């Protein structure tokens, strides 16, 4: 178990309310709101609790607008919480203490911080000065990152002439130049092709291993999360609706396993339905959902009943699981 010394991050009752201006559609609505503004409070984050140990990698999952990015911004100190406590490495992020800033980094896949019209190397040198990295450390770090990210060919090209993937590699390396102990990665692989996603993932995993750094990652690509993080935090409508390991998430939110069959001779759908919920039935190919706990027993029965050429048991795809989770968790609110 983690001792207090191993804790990297501790969040209690974190909430964030925004005030947004509202406007009725159309010209008349605009005129009205021009004169008399109406506002409404949006509860973007409502009471998030979270503990992270040093070296832990956690994936934030949730639909758009669930509060992932808002939470990340509060943890990094950009946003001030409406209420609640945040402790990152013993600092209160919103104070943005210089020592705190030197120990963290925030990478936003949608925002860039490299100087657009200059070679990427110039931005690295600026960061070297800002973070007060001495030359020996700088060289060592650059060598290390170059090994994984293969930067040497692109550092001297103007940033605006780099491809999206090349640019993201540079962004990431620049953001990690000061070897932060806590990484906030908001959609770091957005828009990248699969090869580049894998590359970035490897780099993050390697960094985490070497530096024992704590990583919080949000991503649209489930593969990012499943490849890097054992622990998943699912945020929906500003609340943590799940916090645990990936396997438990699948188990909890999907009580079924999918059994894929290749039949040797045809069988009717009615007959198949006796063994489980028929997901698809296409000639000799069949997919059945079975309750997780009964898979073994049912599969045995199925093998004696049907003429089966091949059988595999799988967990449903994680996308489906998450989709179902949000559907299930949200339902009571509407009811």
């Amino acid at each position, binding site marked *: 178990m983690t001792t207090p010394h191993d804790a990297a991050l501790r969040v209690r009752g974190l909430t964030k309310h925004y*005030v947004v201006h509202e406007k009725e559609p159309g010209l008349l609505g605009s005129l009205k709101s021009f004169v008399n503004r109406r506002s409404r409070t949006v509860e973007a984050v409502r009471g998030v609790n979270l503990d992270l140990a040093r070296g832990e990698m956690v994936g934030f999952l949730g639909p758009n607008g669930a509060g992932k990015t808002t939470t990340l911004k509060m943890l990094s100190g950009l*946003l*001030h919480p409406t209420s609640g406590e945040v402790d990152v490495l013993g600092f209160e992020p919103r104070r*943005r203490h210089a020592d705190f*800033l030197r120990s*963290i980094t925030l990478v936003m896949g949608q925002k860039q911080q490299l100087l657009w*019209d200059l070679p990427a190397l110039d931005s690295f*040198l600026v960061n070297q*000065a*800002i973070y007060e990295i001495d030359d020996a450390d700088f060289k060592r770090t650059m060598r290390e990152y170059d090994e994984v990210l293969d930067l040497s060919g692109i550092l001297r090209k103007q940033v605006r002439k780099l491809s999206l993937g090349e640019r993201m590699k540079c962004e990431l390396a620049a953001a990690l130049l000061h070897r932060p102990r806590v990484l906030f990665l908001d959609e770091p692989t957005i828009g990248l092709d699969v090869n580049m996603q894998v590359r970035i993932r490897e780099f993050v995993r390697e960094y985490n291993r070497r530096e024992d750094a704590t990583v919080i990652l949000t991503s649209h690509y489930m593969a990012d999360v499943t490849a890097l993080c054992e622990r998943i935090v699912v945020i929906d409508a500003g609340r943590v609706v799940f916090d645990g390991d990936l396997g438990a998430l699948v188990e909890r939110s999907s009580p079924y396993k999918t059994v894929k069959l290749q039949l040797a001779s045809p069988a009717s759908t009615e007959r198949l339905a006796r063994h489980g919920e028929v997901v698809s039935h296409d000639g000799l190919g069949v997919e059945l959902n079975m309750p997780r706990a009964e898979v073994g027993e049912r599969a045995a029965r199925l093998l004696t009943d049907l003429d089966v050429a091949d059988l595999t048991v799988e967990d449903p795809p994680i996308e489906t699981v998450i989709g179902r989770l949000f559907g299930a968790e949200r339902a009571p609110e509407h009811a």
Partner: protein
Amino acid sequence: MRAAASLGRKFRAIFSAQLANMVAYRAELIIWMLSGTLSFIMMAIWISQARAAGGEIGGFTEARFASYFTGTWVTGQLLVVWVAWELDVQIRLGNLSPKLLRPLDPLWEHLSNHLGDRLVRAPFIALLACLPLLLVPGAGFTTDPRVYAAYLLVVALGLLIRFLIEYCIGLLCFWTESATSFSEISWLVYAALGGVFAPLQLYPEALRRVARLTPFPYMVNLPATMLAGDAAWGDVGRGVLVLLGWAAALGTLRLVMWRLGLRRYGAVGA
């Protein structure tokens, strides 16, 4: 002391990057320079007026007008500031966020960006300033090196004040949706009261009195007069003191606005 040395190191690194940045923008830079025509328009009309009035107006001959307005143009070019526009964009689009997570006030990056521009701009300014001085007979700048040394000091303070005023205007974006139109107004006031339209001696007394309540005459009229070789050292000394006072006051204002603004930025969204 160590803090200052470390800030110096950081600033040097940012400055050299921003200098390279401005070199990449040199073509635009020349176009921006050529767009600042107000000094030249005023010069042309005043010269024409002086000629129509039989050679001089209020003690200003054609040559003296040419020297003065070339001086206001050179000074105006050295005081060009666009930080309000930059802050406007950075605050509205959230590009300020990554900069806030670095252990250095973003002000230094903005300032070095302007200083880099000045260094790239300087040779073009010198070149273009020669044109009117050569074309109008009798026009010319002072040859006293001490005046140029003092000029640099006055202009550096003037730039600092322009920068801080525009910075405060840009920070208004924390509270309003956009601040760029205020920046246009601020430029007009600075140009009008600074003496870009005419040497301050030719302004009506009431307007001159208003102008003296602001730092602007010491930012344009004074340095232009210095270049033209007409400034008294007493005026220069007084100007430097006034500018120092304004710089301190505006520096404080920007610090207060920055603190309050960040609190708001943190409160409403980044």
